[in-house]
């Protein structure tokens, strides 16, 4: 099933994210996803997230699909040129993976192989354009595909609380023009900024899923403020995480904060995307508290 069908039906779409392991054993990931993400419609699988080499996104998507979940294949331009990207898209379609999230990808310098060659032959926008080309029955070189072309629900990302939000909106517009059908956002901790962003983004007429990362500790919040682009955790939230260390450690405070953000933003968006970063077990409680 394509996630876009749900948006079209007017559903509030909940997705979550899992990161494949650095190894070949995936049973744990699949079991956790089945146990904790049953209330979630679709599951993103990251593509060597943060430029750290891991098991592949496509293989993990196939394993999740076989386990009855709906995977979203994250595809970045960092490690593959246009030939490999198109080939992987055909392979994914052949495996019955219908949802793709097109990303540029983190730079190699941020990961565990800083000596590698950064590819970036295409970027998120030209990747979306390429997917549309394949769907039309032609590859990017203008050569005809044999038989029925693939068809994907094409997702993209945007960073609504970025300090250069106008440049982000301009990029979002280019992604829409290139074929993006829905958006997932970077983690939001400032609902008022997100709501302002949505006022401007609604002109593009594409569904947007609010990005959520459950804050695990005051230290994590400060780390994100210093190092992660497009994220700012306000001081009051950091204080809230500091107030009761045991409660925070148990995940109770983080889930309360995340649920509050979802409730506040829900009237302005078409879904929520949860990046649990290892805290998948908290997702059911978060959804319950957020009333979804």
């Amino acid at each position, binding site marked *: 099933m394509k996630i876009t069908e749900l948006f079209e039906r007017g559903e509030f779409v909940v997705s979550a994210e899992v990161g494949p392991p650095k190894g070949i054993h995936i049973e744990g990931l699949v079991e956790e996803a089945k146990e904790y993400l049953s209330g979630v419609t679709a599951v993103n699988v990251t593509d060597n997230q943060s430029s750290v080499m891991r098991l592949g996104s496509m293989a993990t998507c196939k394993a999740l699909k076989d386990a009855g979940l709906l995977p979203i294949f994250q595809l970045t331009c960092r490690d593959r040129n246009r030939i490999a990207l198109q080939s992987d898209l055909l392979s994914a379609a052949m495996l019955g993976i219908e949802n793709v999230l097109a990303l540029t990808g983190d730079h190699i310098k941020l990961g565990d192989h800083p000596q590698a060659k950064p590819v970036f032959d295409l970027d998120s*926008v030209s990747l979306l354009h390429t997917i549309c080309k394949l769907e039309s029955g032609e590859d990017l070189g203008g050569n005809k595909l044999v038989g029925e072309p693939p068809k994907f629900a094409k997702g993209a*990302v945007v960073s609504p609380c970025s300090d250069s939000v106008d440049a982000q909106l301009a990029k979002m517009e280019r992604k829409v023009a290139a074929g993006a059908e829905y958006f997932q956002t970077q983690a939001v901790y400032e609902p008022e900024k997100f709501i302002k962003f949505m006022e401007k983004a609604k002109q593009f007429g594409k569904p947007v899923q609010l990005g959520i990362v459950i804050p695990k500790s005051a230290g994590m919040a400060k780390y994100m403020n210093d190092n992660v682009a497009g994220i700012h955790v306000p001081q009051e939230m950091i204080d809230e995480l500091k107030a009761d260390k045991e409660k925070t450690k148990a995940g109770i405070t983080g889930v309360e904060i995340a649920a509050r953000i979802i409730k506040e933003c829900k009237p302005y968006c078409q879904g929520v995307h949860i990046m649990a970063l290892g805290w998948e077990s908290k997702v059911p409680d978060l959804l319950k508290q957020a009333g979804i």
Partner: protein
Amino acid sequence: MLITQLKSKETIVSLVDGKKIFIINCQGCKEVHFPEKEALELQKELAADGKVTGSITTDYICNPENMKLRLEKHMDAIKAADLVLVFSCGVGVQTIAEYLEDKMVCAACDSCRLPGFQGVTPIEYDCGQCGECYLNLTGGICPITACSKSLLNGQCGGSKNGKCEVDSNMECGWERIYRRLEKIGRLDVLKCPTQVRNYATDDEV
């Protein structure tokens, strides 16, 4: 070494369509092959339409001090133009775009790489000698050399406080591009078709 070659006539004509232009030719650097004759012919045609407010032929516009001295005498003609069209390698275009901060500055040439000695170019600006030049879509700031990922279609999500997440001393190239296009009132340039980089320059040289 590098070769500059004229962009196609259609590209240049559509770029300057209906606009008053000032033309700058750079013929300074003997390490760069410059298509002198073809440029002159094209400029004659452009001048025949009566839209050229002035033109100069000079050397080493990549040297900011030299470039300022040369341009100073022509500031009235430059101010009267809507667009400054530069016939040079990518470094020259970027140097002029930085100096004429309120003007749309465009490249009339593509710069292609040749193996061998690299001309004497200043360190502030870098030309990737990519072949197809993208400076006209980015307000004269090079997306290839000013962006860590050499992105052609806009900013990634990795800029924090205006800096690139790969190198905290480097300004985000696409934020610079956005700010410049905003300043010269040409954000419409960002609505151009999706750009896919062309690496196949060998057969065009």
